[in-house]
C-alpha cells in the first residue's frame, strides 16, 4: 500500500473513531455531577465489609477475580521477559567493573534505601485504609533495592539480591492469591469471597481477605519487578554478543563492560 493510500485509510478511520467518540462523550453524565450509580453502590459495599479505601474493596473484594487476572498478566509478562532475555549460546558474560560514585550520592542512597523500603511496606500494609496497596507498594519496594545500583554500583546490588529467592517469591505471591481463593471455596463460600472476620473499620486489621490478597499482590509485584529488572540489568551490563566482527568490542574507549 502506498504512503498516500495509508494516509487516506487512516484519515477515514480516524474520522469514524472521532465521530463515535464525540457521540459517546455527548451521552456521558456531566463531569463532576452528583449522580454516580456505580460509585455509590461500590462505596456502600466497601463500607459493609468495613473497608475504608473503597478502591481496595473493589480491587480485592468485589472484583477480586479480575485482580487475579491482572496479577497473572504481570506474572506471565515477567516469565516472558525471563525467557526472551536469557543468556543464549555464544553470549559471553563479563562482570561489570566497579563504578565510582560521589560520596554525597552514596550517602543519599544509604539514607533513602531504608526509607523507601519502609514507605513501600507502609503503602502495602495500609492498602485497605489509605490510597495505595499491593501493586503500588510492591513497585516502591522493588525500586528501593535498585537504589543500590543507581547510588552505588551493580556489584553492590548483585551481592545483596539473591535472585532465586525473588523468583520463588514471585511464584509464591501468585500462588498465595489463588490458594486464598481455593480456601474461600473450601470454607463454603464463593471463589475469593470475603470470608475472614471484617474487623474494625479504619484499622490495620480491617477488611478481611483484602489484607491477605493485598500482601500476596505486594509480594508478587515486588519480587516480579526485581526479577524483571535483573534480566534487563544482566543484558545491559553483563551479557555480550559473540563478536560478529573483529575489533568490535575492544575498539571502544573505556570498554563497554560497564
Amino acid at each position, binding site marked *: 500500500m502506498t504512503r498516500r493510500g495509508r494516509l487516506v485509510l487512516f484519515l477515514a478511520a480516524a474520522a469514524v473513531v472521532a465521530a463515535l467518540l464525540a457521540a459517546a462523550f455527548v451521552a456521558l453524565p456531566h463531569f463532576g455531577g452528583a449522580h454516580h450509580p456505580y460509585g455509590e453502590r461500590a462505596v456502600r459495599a466497601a463500607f459493609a465489609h468495613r473497608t475504608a479505601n473503597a478502591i481496595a474493596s473493589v480491587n480485592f473484594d468485589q472484583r477480586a477475580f479480575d485482580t487475579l487476572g491482572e496479577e497473572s498478566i504481570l506474572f506471565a509478562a515477567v516469565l516472558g521477559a525471563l525467557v526472551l532475555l536469557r543468556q543464549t549460546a555464544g553470549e559471553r558474560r563479563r562482570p561489570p567493573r566497579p563504578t565510582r560514585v560521589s560520596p554525597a550520592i552514596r550517602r543519599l542512597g544509604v539514607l533513602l534505601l531504608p526509607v523507601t523500603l519502609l514507605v513501600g511496606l507502609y503503602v502495602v500494609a495500609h492498602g485497605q485504609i489509605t*490510597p495505595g496497596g499491593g501493586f503500588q507498594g510492591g513497585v516502591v519496594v522493588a525500586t528501593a533495592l535498585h537504589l543500590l545500583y543507581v547510588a552505588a554500583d551493580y556489584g553492590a546490588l548483585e551481592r545483596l539480591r539473591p535472585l532465586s529467592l525473588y523468583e520463588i517469591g514471585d511464584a509464591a505471591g501468585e500462588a498465595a492469591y489463588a490458594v486464598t481463593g481455593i480456601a474461600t471455596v473450601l470454607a463454603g463460600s464463593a471463589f475469593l469471597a470475603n470470608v475472614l472476620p471484617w474487623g474494625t473499620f479504619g484499622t490495620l486489621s480491617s477488611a478481611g481477605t483484602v489484607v491477605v490478597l493485598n500482601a500476596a499482590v505486594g509480594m508478587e509485584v515486588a519480587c516480579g519487578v526485581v526479577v524483571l529488572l535483573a534480566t534487563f540489568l544482566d543484558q545491559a551490563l553483563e551479557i555480550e554478543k559473540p563478536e560478529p566482527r573483529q575489533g568490535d568490542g575492544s575498539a*571502544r574507549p573505556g570498554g563497554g563492560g560497564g
Partner: protein
Amino acid sequence: MTDVLLALALLLVAVTATAAVLNREPVRQALVLSFLGLALALLFTFVQAPDVSLSQLAVGSAVTPLMIVLTVRKVRRDAGTGPGPGPDSGPDPSANTGPAHGRSGGDGPGEGGRR
C-alpha cells in the same frame, strides 16, 4: 479553584504528551515520558483518584526510566555502528530506534500490571 488546577493539569498532560511524540531520540523521549508521568499523577490526584496516581508515580518515576535506559544502552552496545560517541549516532539514527522496539518487550509488564 479546583477547576483552575484541573485545567492546568490537563494542559500539562496534553502539551507533554505532544512533546513526547515529537521527540524522536529514545533517552530524550524517556525524560519527557517521566514528565508526562508526573503530569498524569497530578491530574489523577486532582480528580480525586490518588490510587491511580500512586500507581503512575511508582511505575513511572524510576522503574520505567530504568528499563528504557537499560534497553537503549544494550541496543547501542550491540548495534556496534561505530566505536566513538559521534559516529554511533551519526550515520543512521534509525538504527538506534529500530531495534529498541523489538527488544523492549519488557515494557509490557509495567503497563499490564498497572491499575
